[in-house]
């Protein structure tokens, strides 16, 4: 779940506005607009997908002060996305609770042996370094 509509609870369908590049082709039939295709890539498609992914990643990484505040629901929402189901403009990146982590002391105790092994290995390699000077 990446985005959530505050009105209908939709987490799947959304809309946004992005910029892309098309090709203007002038021929005997007139002026036509088509996808800008280069020999190795469809530039229109590539730009569209990249811009959409960039916008989405930016929105998900935004901190609360960069989002707009909704006093009604007391939540912060992004103004870049709209719900495609109900057309509501208040779409939020949902809050993901952090997984419960063990305390630092427990974590250190758990990996104590592994750490000592690592130190021994370092000592071993230090003893067998090539001697540059006698």
């Amino acid at each position, binding site marked *: 779940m990446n985005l959530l509509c505050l009105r209908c609870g939709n987490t799947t*369908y959304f809309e946004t506005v*992005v*910029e*892309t*590049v098309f090709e203007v082709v*002038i021929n005997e039939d007139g*002026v036509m607009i088509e996808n800008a295709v280069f020999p190795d890539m469809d530039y229109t498609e590539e730009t569209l997908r990249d811009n959409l*992914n960039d916008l*989405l990643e930016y929105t998900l990484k935004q901190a609360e002060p960069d989002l707009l505040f909704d006093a009604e629901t007391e939540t912060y929402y992004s103004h870049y996305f709209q719900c495609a189901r109900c057309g509501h403009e208040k779409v939020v990146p949902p809050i993901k609770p952090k997984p419960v982590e063990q305390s630092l002391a427990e974590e250190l105790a758990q990996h104590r042996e592994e750490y000592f092994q690592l130190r021994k290995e370092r000592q071993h390699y230090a003893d067998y370094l090539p001697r540059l000077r006698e």
Partner: protein
Amino acid sequence: MQITCPACGNNRHFLIPLWVRVTFKFNEDGTISILHVRQLESMEDKITDQGKTSFAITCKECGGEAEVVFNEYETLTEEQTQQAVLEAL
């Protein structure tokens, strides 16, 4: 109307930036599928605004800024107009 590139002389293929509204969905595997793309700006407006905004029509071949001439017959003399008409016939 004529669109030409003053740098390389190309008069066929140009690139134009346009804003589009994208409807998409999140798939269960975390990827995105695009469902619909709708153009928000008209090409006519963009061509009319050429030279007035920084979002310009550029040449596909060399990347240079294109030049739009709306009435290429405007600067022709009467003799040149007659010649162009005869050539067209």
